[in-house]
């Protein structure tokens, strides 16, 4: 992307001219932007310059707006070692905001600007990779891999039958019949390798298909020529080679198919009307009945009934959790005992469970650092193998008949396996992501898992993160008991947790008129002809002469009558967790709360507290620290979570903060497991790579005949050993504890 370009995007969420200004500024400050015009009426922004679209989108999102984007999923038929080529093609396409390619499933998922690029144009860019559009994400992927597996099994069946025939005829001396039997093996069963080799050639690269096609093709062509001249034929080697490669690849496809997906169970929901429907047909607001022993089909709130739910699928917590009126329930958990009537808040693919499954299936590998090195090595791998094979043939043809020398060369081609190198990293990530998900840690971005072990600082939000988020309000100073009752009456009309706590301080019934709520600040209303104002000290101070200490102040007719302290409890296990973190990292609390309670929490835990921060100031603090991890749960943590080197959000937090988090945990203390998982991941990647390289390093010299005649690896066995390399990497990844 070197030349100047113009791109049009649609910005979502602009209300007025101030918004236009903010968006314009946010786009303008992106590297490479030369000009921008934002239209409030249409929501379109036209940007000129030589810029990266994802940086523009990030900057707009950081300023609090969003950009219309389209999720596109494309099935790509490519070998794992081609992953970076495919990503390069896609990310250099105008209009692509972000892209991931999972070589293990062959699915490319991307976000694109629908105004700049269409799915068809993307398919056009990927011509030569047999790309096709996937409809619904999960079902599409499963059927894709199933189709791949079925076609492999067919090819393998054809190859096995005709290879047996070819072997029988060749060893019985009927070379012509051996030739005839070899044709379906080479050109039906083995066609995928020849096609792949042709595709690689057109893209000016070489991959595993090239090696298989070259080795089996050379053996076959050589045999055909000799058949005409009456020389030795190797139809056995050519056909066995294709068959053995297919054996390994089919096994590998099968294993990857079995382990690549966590399936969302298909649940049925019984509506309170008596109807039974598929769980994804339930609408928000519908009442659903769950009986003992059944799975909860939707996310929602218990409206009636009580029982015990097993939520281990989601939280990893083995003990059943008590559920009663008002408790939240989550799809995928099961009711151990009791009876619940659930008010649906989310269903189908919007449930926490579905999102979790999608995230885990998606956790992909495109930006993992180690993988880049591996991709570079892989791109030299295949050409080097071809060179080694040619050299092997040249050296041997001085010592043995040309036919035998050729077999050595072919064996080298057949023994080298770039696939295992390509699979080493994604498989390790997939396994770690899956293992962590079983413990309730949802890794939404594979690279965050890799980065977690490099963090230097841990910054925690206070309310709801360090503390349990269950507020307690304690009166501090009460000048006028009647005033307190009026304040409680007004607070009764608000649903804010602090307001609820204050309203519970008095049982007096009073009529409230002209009620107004200022979200996050306070409430106002008229009681018995008096104007009552209750809220945060800063908010009240602008409208009433406050001369008392406290977090919350109540004012009647501009005269303060009572003040309250807001307290919260530190979560269980938090002290031990922080002590553990302090050994390796700088730890601090960043909170919007400016009350004395914030300092108290810091004193109790023995860490620094930065208090009274706005959402932007939290993000600034995170930015100022090197490689900081931020853990938070609220809407005011979103910016900080996004800004962090690794952003962690709590599953109990707001939807917005969960959207922002690289990782979602059920409790902040789970971060220890995340960091541990990150170290494990790095070890696994290295192990897989050492295994894959080591396997090649032993096999190639053997195939080249270094130990000949002591130990000799004919091409077909070299091929079998090669194809088992990726099988072994796959198995090793999954079986290792």
């Amino acid at each position: 992307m070197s030349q100047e370009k113009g791109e049009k995007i649609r910005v979502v969420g602009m209300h007025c001219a101030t918004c236009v200004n903010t968006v314009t500024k946010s786009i303008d400050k992106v590297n490479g932007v030369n000009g921008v015009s934002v239209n409030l009426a249409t929501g379109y922004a036209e940007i000129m310059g030589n810029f990266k679209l994802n940086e523009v989108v990030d900057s707009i999102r950081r300023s609090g707006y969003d950009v219309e984007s389209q999720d596109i999923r494309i099935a790509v038929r490519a070998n794992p070692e081609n992953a970076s080529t495919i990503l390069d093609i896609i990310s250099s396409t105008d209009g692509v905001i972000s892209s991931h390619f999972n070589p293990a499933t062959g699915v490319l998922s991307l976000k694109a600007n629908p105004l700049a690029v269409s799915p068809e144009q993307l398919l056009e860019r990927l011509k030569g990779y047999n790309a096709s559009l996937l409809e619904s994400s999960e079902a599409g992927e499963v059927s894709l891999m199933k189709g791949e597996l079925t076609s492999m099994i067919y090819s393998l069946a054809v190859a096995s039958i005709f290879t047996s025939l070819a072997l029988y005829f060749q060893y019985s001396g009927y070379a012509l019949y051996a030739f005839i039997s070899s044709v379906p093996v080479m050109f039906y069963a083995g066609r995928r390798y020849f096609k792949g080799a042709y595709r690689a050639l057109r893209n000016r690269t070489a991959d595993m298909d090239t090696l298989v096609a070259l080795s089996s093709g050379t053996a076959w062509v050589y045999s055909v020529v000799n058949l005409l001249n009456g020389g030795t034929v190797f139809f056995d080697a050519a056909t066995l080679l294709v068959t053995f490669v297919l054996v390994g690849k089919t096994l590998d496809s099968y294993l990857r198919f079995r382990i690549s997906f966590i399936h969302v169970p298909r649940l049925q929901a019984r509506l309170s009307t008596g109807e039974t429907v598929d769980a994804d047909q339930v609408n928000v607001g519908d009442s659903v009945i769950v009986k003992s022993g059944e799975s909860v089909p939707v996310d929602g709130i218990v409206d009636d009934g009580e029982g015990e739910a097993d939520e281990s699928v989601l939280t990893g917590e083995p003990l059943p959790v008590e559920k009663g009126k008002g408790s939240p329930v989550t799809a995928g958990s099961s009711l151990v005992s009791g009876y619940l009537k659930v008010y649906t808040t989310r269903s189908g693919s919007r449930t926490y469970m579905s999102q979790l499954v999608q995230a885990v299936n998606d956790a992909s590998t495109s930006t993992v650092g180690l993988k880049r090195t591996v991709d570079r090595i892989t791109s030299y791998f295949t050409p080097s193998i071809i060179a080694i094979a040619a050299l092997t043939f040249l050296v041997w043809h001085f010592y043995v008949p040309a036919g035998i020398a050729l077999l050595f060369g072919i064996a080298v081609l057949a023994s080298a396996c770039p696939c295992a190198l390509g699979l080493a990293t994604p498989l390790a990530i997939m396994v770690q992501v899956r293992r962590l998900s079983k413990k309730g840690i949802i890794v939404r971005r594979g690279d965050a898992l890799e980065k977690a072990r490099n963090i230097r600082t841990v910054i925690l939000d206070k309310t709801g993160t360090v503390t349990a988020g269950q507020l307690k309000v304690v009166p501090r100073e009460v000048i006028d008991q009647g005033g307190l009752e009026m304040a409680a009456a007004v607070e009764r009309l608000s649903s804010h947790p602090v307001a609820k706590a204050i309203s519970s301080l008095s049982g007096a019934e009073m009529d409230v008129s002209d009620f107004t709520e200022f979200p996050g600040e306070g409430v106002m209303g008229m009681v018995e002809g008096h104007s009552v104002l209750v809220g945060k000290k800063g908010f009240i101070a602008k409208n009433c002469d406050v001369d008392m200490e406290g977090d919350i102040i109540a004012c009647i007719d501009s005269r303060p009558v009572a003040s309250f302290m807001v307290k919260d409890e530190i979560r269980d296990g938090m002290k031990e967790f922080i002590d553990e973190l302090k050994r390796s990292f700088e730890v601090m609390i960043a909170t919007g709360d400016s009350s004395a309670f914030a300092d108290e929490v810091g004193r109790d835990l023995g860490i620094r507290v930065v208090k009274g921060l706005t959402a932007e100031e939290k993000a600034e603090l995170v930015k100022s620290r090197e490689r900081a991890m931020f853990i938070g749960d609220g809407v005011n943590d979103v910016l900080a979570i996004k800004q962090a080197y690794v952003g962690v959000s709590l599953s109990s937090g707001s939807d917005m903060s969960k959207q922002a988090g690289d990782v979602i945990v059920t409790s902040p203390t789970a971060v220890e497991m995340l960091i541990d998982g990150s170290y494990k991941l790095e070890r696994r990647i290295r192990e897989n790579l050492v295994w894959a390289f080591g396997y090649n390093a032993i096999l190639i010299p053997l195939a080249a005949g270094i130990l000949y005649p002591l130990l000799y690896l004919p091409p077909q066995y070299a091929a079998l050993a090669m194809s088992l390399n990726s099988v072994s990497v796959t198995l090793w990844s999954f079986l290792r504890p």
Partner: protein
Amino acid sequence: MKKMDPVCGMEVDESTRYKSLYRGKVYFFCSANCKAEFEMDPEGYLRSGPRSMPE
């Protein structure tokens, strides 16, 4: 009921979540941005009225 945003001059509904209490009077805004602008300098906006659309 429609009210005027004192920062950008737009008409806003009273049901908006963006509002501010200043000297006992409630002001309504179209967005968090306008509310923040107002709270930085309420006197300024009340004196000179909404600023015109920026270029």
